[in-house]
């Protein structure tokens, strides 16, 4: 027996057949979107940086919910795995380890306020200019950028994979290379071999035998032994 049959539309007239589902989807959208906006606001409003990161995580998580509503479940899961599960953990890790002096942090607030306001005004003006110059009409698909419809019976993941690894393979590989470079750069900058430090070598430890590390010395009374 199938335990959970998924949503089954009512068998009555067509008008109410599809009625409840959009309502739930809309409610879910406003729930997720509302939490994302609130959490994002709290990221910049909360005084404790650790709380900021926690709000950021909440925002990520609900953004994943929005992806699910769009039908992009693979992206939603990857968002949670990569951003919530790895990036934000390291974020939290660093913020927790830092010894933050809140008084010193807030000391320069008034000093930097004019610069901040100027920057905000600049961004706002730019946004308005963009609004004025171009129109936000629907993008007309041409042959080059027409969406490729997935083959029948393909899941979200397969469709994404078969696009990324064929049409966009160079861009995808280039993105991977950029990340690899950043990773190697971080290791090169922080990894240093100091002379004179004794490091543990598991292979050498396991290869050690009693014959190499012990020796028998006959000590005459009252003289000690030179090692």
């Amino acid at each position, binding site marked *: *027996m*199938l*335990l*959970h*049959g*998924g*949503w*089954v*539309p*009512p068998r009555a007239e067509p008008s109410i057949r599809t009625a*409840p589902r959009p309502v739930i989807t809309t409610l879910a959208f406003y729930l997720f979107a509302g939490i994302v906006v609130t959490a994002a606001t709290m990221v910049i409003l909360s005084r*404790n940086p*650790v*709380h900021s990161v*926690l709000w950021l*995580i909440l925002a990520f*998580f609900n953004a994943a919910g929005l992806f699910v509503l769009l039908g992009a*479940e*693979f992206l939603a*899961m*990857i968002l*949670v*795995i990569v951003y*919530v*599960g*790895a990036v934000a*953990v*390291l974020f*939290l*890790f660093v913020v*927790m*380890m830092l010894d933050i002096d809140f008084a010193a942090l807030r000391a320069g607030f008034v000093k930097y306020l004019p610069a901040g306001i100027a920057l905000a005004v600049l961004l706002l003006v730019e946004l308005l200019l963009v609004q004025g110059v171009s129109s936000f009409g629907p993008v007309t698909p041409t042959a080059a950028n027409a969406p*490729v419809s*997935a*083959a*029948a*019976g*393909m*899941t*979200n*993941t*397969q*469709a994404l994979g*078969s*696009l990324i690894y*064929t*049409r966009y393979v160079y861009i995808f590989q280039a993105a991977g290379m950029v990340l690899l470079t950043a990773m190697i750069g971080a290791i090169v900058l922080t990894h240093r071999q100091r002379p004179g430090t004794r490091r*543990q070598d*598991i292979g050498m430890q396991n290869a050690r035998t009693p014959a190499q590390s012990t020796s028998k010395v006959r000590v005459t009374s009252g003289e000690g032994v030179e090692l």
Partner: protein
Amino acid sequence: MSWTEAFQDVLGPGWGYFIGTLLLILLIALPVMVGVALAVYADRKIWASMQLRRGPNVVGPFGILQTFADALKLFLKETIIPSGANKGVFLIAPMITFTLALIAWAVIPFDAGLVLADLNVGLLYLFAISSMGVYGIIMSGWASNSKYPFLGGLRSAAQMVSYEVSIGFVIVCVVLYAASFNLSDIVLAQKGNVLGFLNGNIFNPLLFPMAILFFISALAETNRPPFDLPEAEAELVAGYQVEYSSMAFALFFLGEYANILLMCALTSVLFLGGWLPPVDWAPLYVIPGFFWMMGKIFFMFFVFAWVKATVPRYRYDQLMRLGWKVFLPLSLLWVVIVSGWLVFTGHFDTLPGVSI
């Protein structure tokens, strides 16, 4: 006719769906909680037997009610919130651990079709949930505002993130064979997959090393011995949960064991063939798949307890070395080997693809 449809017929499409789903959630969550209680008992009994002790044997027949007595004692204790604690985060942390441990069970198939949410990205969902499990621990460690919990939280954050990477690669190997993220599909792909009559990826010589690696990573991911450094009682008293008492502590405890059972279930789904019997032989299918699945989960749990009773705790730097310098390169190499072999043998030729 499914369960939810039956409810929809009686209560109307909207409420029937809602109440049917709600009851299904309870039908999974409550047995998981009872299972956790029995698992704690089984853990203590197995551990005791291996050390030639009797273990719990006073409360109820064979001491089987010991866990329930412990839980009752915990619930009657006073909830203490340290004055220096960050109250909100302190209280949310155990709830996160507990909730995440429970919601992951939604996608576990107990038999053919016997699954709450048959997601087509079920495995990724599980991976996402288990990667979020670290927050309960790290938040409790930080919010307690105390040295031992903080160190425990930091340790566990680093540990869980490290071993997640290799778990991810092992999952990729299995997914390549099944060509699906759906857990039911992964189980069905294992039907007679080795030599035509063995069910289970673990019998596949290419995937056997990955099964071992997955099991060890699962131990690290659930903070089980020999990787229980976040709560190493000899060094950190009890790690991240030092400051917790009463219900909050109980939530951590239940969440931890629910996670262990979940990892056992996941191992059975990925490598032991889920609800299928180990050999593809008709008389074995007389036993319902549900019992095979339960038996496999219990077997995995026994191995978890076995490891706990026999292996000494790792040192922290060796734990990190194992994760990053041994498991990560090995599993990465294995993804390349497995995908190379599958392309070579034409495993993917029948899959639908986009022609550009």
